[in-house]
């Protein structure tokens, strides 16, 4: 019985120490991101991301397409005209 109490005590200490440590460790990581990384981001902006305010993933996929803004605007203009004509037909 005494042995069990001892084990519970150990488990409790482990839980407390473990949770505190995990939180402290990851909190320091937050500070690291907010200070060091944020400063680096300002100092060395990404040429791609800097031009668009979207998330990285989106801008990447946009890049992959390799379509220039001029072409995009031309296409969207054509689509708009087609849609309006299409709408009038009906």
């Amino acid at each position: 019985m005494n042995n069990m109490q001892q084990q519970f005590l150990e488990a409790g200490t482990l839980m407390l120490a473990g949770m505190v440590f995990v939180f402290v460790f990851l909190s320091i990581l937050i500070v690291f991101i907010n200070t060091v990384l944020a400063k680096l981001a300002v100092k060395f902006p990404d040429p791609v991301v800097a031009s668009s305010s979207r998330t990285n993933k989106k801008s990447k996929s946009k890049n992959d397409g390799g379509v220039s803004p001029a072409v995009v605007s031309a296409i969207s203009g054509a689509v708009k005209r087609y849609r309006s004509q299409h709408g009038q037909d009906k």
Partner: protein
Amino acid sequence: MDSLNTLWLSTGLANFELGQVIMMVVGCGLLYLAIARNFEPLLLLPMGFGAILTNIPVAGFSEVGGLLHYIYYAGIDTGIFPLIIFMGVGAMTDFGALIGNPKTLLLGAAAQFGIFATLFGAIALNYIPGIEFTLKDASAIAIIGGADGPTAIFLASKLAPELLGAIAVAAYSYMALVPIIQPPIMRALTSEKERKIEMAQLRPVTKIEKIIFPLGVLLMTIFFLPSATPLVGMFCLGNLMRESGVVDRLSSTAQNELINITTIFLGLGVGSKLSSEAFLNVETLGILALGAVAFSIGTASGVLMAKLMNKFSKVPINPLIGAAGVSAVPMAARVANKVGLESNPHNFLLMHAMGPNVAGVLGSAVAAGILLALVGT
């Protein structure tokens, strides 16, 4: 006549023991889950087959000289296989969502409560006759709550190798069950209004941040928790290969061929631990029960932490993403996204949930390091 008798004695039929037959059925059960139910098939299929092989009488797969024996000792006993897999996971992980919203690290930390609370449960099970868990065993079982297969196998191989089979089966089964276990807990702990919360778009993350991040994590682990450096170190190596952009070939190998090859051997090696002596006992039932408890507590504490943060934060935080803190990448994040969509069909939480999700991977690696440092000596 004599030689006929010898031939009969060398057949499987003459040598089967009941335990072996039962374990083969368990192996077939794992194969069924993998093939018919698509439960973590990449691991459960080789694991189930390994369980069948290791229980073949006479063949001696898991005895000295047998294939599975060497696979186990070369890769799992040494901890090499889970670490290689962790490198591959690192190469597959995009920390962008985490760096864009660093607060989510706290959710990854909170969800680790599942691990440490289960420690208590494992010790409490000692009241049941037939179960005797030491603190080492309890720690190895508790790590199931980290919902991270390689971490669980790594820690179990160090702290409680005799429980490895049961722990691995529990860890991977529950990871496959994340879409069933988590949603009821998430719905019970949040209100409809909270589930509808839309989150602000993440800030853009630059390439240099993504390159420095794994190095920073490694540096911190070196300073504060060297016992976690095998896991975190390999993870950061994989991640750096991905983000540096200069070794795409290595990165692609780490996240494809290498992780696949290792998964085959890891599954077989873990399966070899599913022998009747090691698996057919009350302790296995205890481990399976504790694993479910660990998962549930981890999910609940992640959600509760997110609720708390939402109260105090200026920018709204949807409590559902807290559930993704239990790693299980990317399944837990998908579950958060799905439950969120049920309440608000225009609310896509996936990217936001990836933050706590990858934070959970770091968190469980850190928790494993703590357990190794405090219990492993």
